[in-house]
């Protein structure tokens, strides 16, 4: 961790419930619940960049939205510089954490020019004196490498990469200390991705930003982050420095993710560590360790007892939520027998 902690997630949980109709209310039928996020805790140091990876539906975007205050968590708090945010975040607190969304096409209001969008933020938050608003907007565009004349243009006239730069500029307009990027390049063309990734890296350096990068793509996280947390079914299953995580993953799920990630350089595949099956339905989570139905080393113990996120011996910064992360299973350990479904 660079510097002291700036942001902390303390036991964040978020459940979504389905909409209830008038009839449901009268019949007192409870809504169906989906546990999107369960007891997620971590610290982010000032100036650090933390990556959060996982497959679709693992809760990473929900986590991002809880952190910026879009969703009120069902349990737990977001702690900023040692102080808890209130449930309904105050106007000035909102500025501290900003987010850049995945889809550059729908994250800008199609009815506003880029200049209008930027000036609106500056005015609402009174970031600069009213006479300076326009020139500040141009400065912001320059900050993300865009020309001033972009200000007069509507979003539809820009490419995906340009829009994503505008999104970054708008988020930075309120001068946040923490920037969350939720899949910032996954909707962009491959040749454009590097420009946005490099922009994030350089902004972080120049402005001393703290960056939380949400991605499904391990390579993006590896490129940009100091530390990485891996999520599965709403929980963090492993968190470690980037180097540790990629060189010495302890959780079987992390190992499987790494084994499955296609790479230009590794031609022979690590078949032993790849897994079968699909992620379970979030409405119907498995008992015990949520990963046990797909896990190559799971035992009976794993089907009943959920492993906590534990630190490894001698390394307080590497944590994994697996019974066998730090102590390999005993020699007489018999892996769970399972159906064809999970083997192929």
């Amino acid at each position: 961790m660079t510097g002291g902690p700036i942001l902390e997630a303390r036991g964040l949980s978020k459940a979504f419930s389905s909409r209830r109709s008038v009839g449901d209310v009268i019949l007192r039928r409870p809504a169906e619940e989906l546990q999107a996020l369960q007891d997620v805790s971590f610290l982010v140091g000032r100036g650090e960049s933390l990556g959060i990876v996982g497959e679709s539906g693992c809760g990473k975007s929900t986590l991002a939205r809880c952190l910026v205050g879009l969703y009120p968590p069902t349990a737990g708090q977001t702690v900023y510089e040692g102080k808890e945010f209130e449930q309904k975040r105050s106007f000035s607190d909102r500025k501290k954490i900003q987010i850049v969304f995945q889809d550059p096409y729908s994250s800008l209001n199609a009815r506003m020019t880029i200049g209008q969008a930027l000036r609106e933020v500056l005015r609402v938050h009174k970031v600069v004196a009213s006479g300076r608003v326009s020139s500040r907007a141009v400065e912001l565009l320059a900050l993300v490498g865009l020309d001033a004349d972009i200000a007069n243009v509507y979003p539809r006239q820009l490419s995906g990469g340009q829009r994503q730069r505008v999104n970054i500029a708008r988020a930075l307009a309120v001068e946040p200390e923490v920037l969350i990027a939720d899949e910032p390049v996954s909707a962009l063309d491959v040749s454009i991705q590097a420009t946005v990734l490099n922009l994030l890296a350089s902004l972080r350096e120049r402005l001393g930003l703290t960056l939380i990068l949400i991605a499904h793509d391990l390579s993006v996280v590896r490129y940009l982050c100091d530390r990485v947390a891996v999520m599965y079914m709403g929980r963090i299953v492993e968190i470690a420095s980037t180097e540790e995580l990629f060189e010495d993953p302890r959780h079987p799920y992390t190992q499987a993710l790494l084994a499955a990630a296609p790479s230009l350089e590794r031609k022979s595949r690590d078949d032993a560590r790849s897994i079968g099956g699909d992620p379970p339905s979030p409405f119907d989570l498995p008992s015990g360790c949520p990963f046990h139905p797909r896990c190559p080393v799971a035992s009976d113990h794993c089907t009943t007892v959920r492993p906590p996120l534990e630190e490894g011996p001698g390394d307080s910064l590497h944590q994994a939520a697996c019974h066998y992360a730090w102590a390999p299973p005993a020699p007489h350990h018999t892996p769970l027998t399972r159906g064809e479904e999970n083997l192929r």
Partner: protein
Amino acid sequence: MTAVSRSASPKAARGRRSYSLVIGAGLLGVIVVLAILAPWITPYDPLAHDLESILAPLSSDHLLGTDHLGRDVWTRLLYAARLDLLIGVGAVITPFVTGTLLGAVAGYYGGRIDLAVSAATDMLFAFPYYVLIIALVFSLGPGIPSIFIAMAVVAWVSYARIVRGEVLSARGQQYVMAAKTLGYSDLRIIVRHILPNVITQPVTYAMSDIVVIIVGVVTLSYLGLGVPPPTPDWGSMIASGQSYLTTQWQLSTIPGIAVVIVGLAFSLIGDGLTHRLRPE
């Protein structure tokens, strides 16, 4: 995906639809000008009986003949246009505003407000359109003010439903989430961000709603519940001409055609607007 192959059609459509906007607006313009200039276009009084020339056929004196009281049909047609258009356009304004606002609030805030608005719209929507209108006009008594009230009570439901659905989906869009994380007030988000992006739907719906209202007024008048005679109105014209239809076909046919043409004009405008107002 098929981006390349499909980019072709929407733009082609846009060009053609502007065409339909132009035709629709032109058609409506002609009708409106004729209606406004009615006193200067025709020498007759729409109410004056002329027992000398009852049920006159089409002629240069009476372009579309006369009715059973000797009134000039062309004159009455033009004066009826004034009234029916005014009611159609006028009656759409209140439900448009109230429905859009209620729908936006219900869709944006959800929860109890939404439950209440949705329940109200569901129930009102369950009644057949004409049953509601007729029952309301029945209890309010016939006449133009009753028609206005009845239409306003019934029509807001459609706007509320449309806007609620649109706002509900906009609420999940990233531009709205972005506005929220920037700390914008709900009012600003609804008025500056969501409404400009969803207003196309209720606006184009309003065009067809005007047609529905005009047809409704005409129908009520036909049943004797709408515009009271002798005020010229297309519905009562059709009704009074019905008995002479086999001999004087134009008496009931022409006012009906007037309704259809007005309907076509507004539909064309709505169709053109759908594509003109689309942001992308």
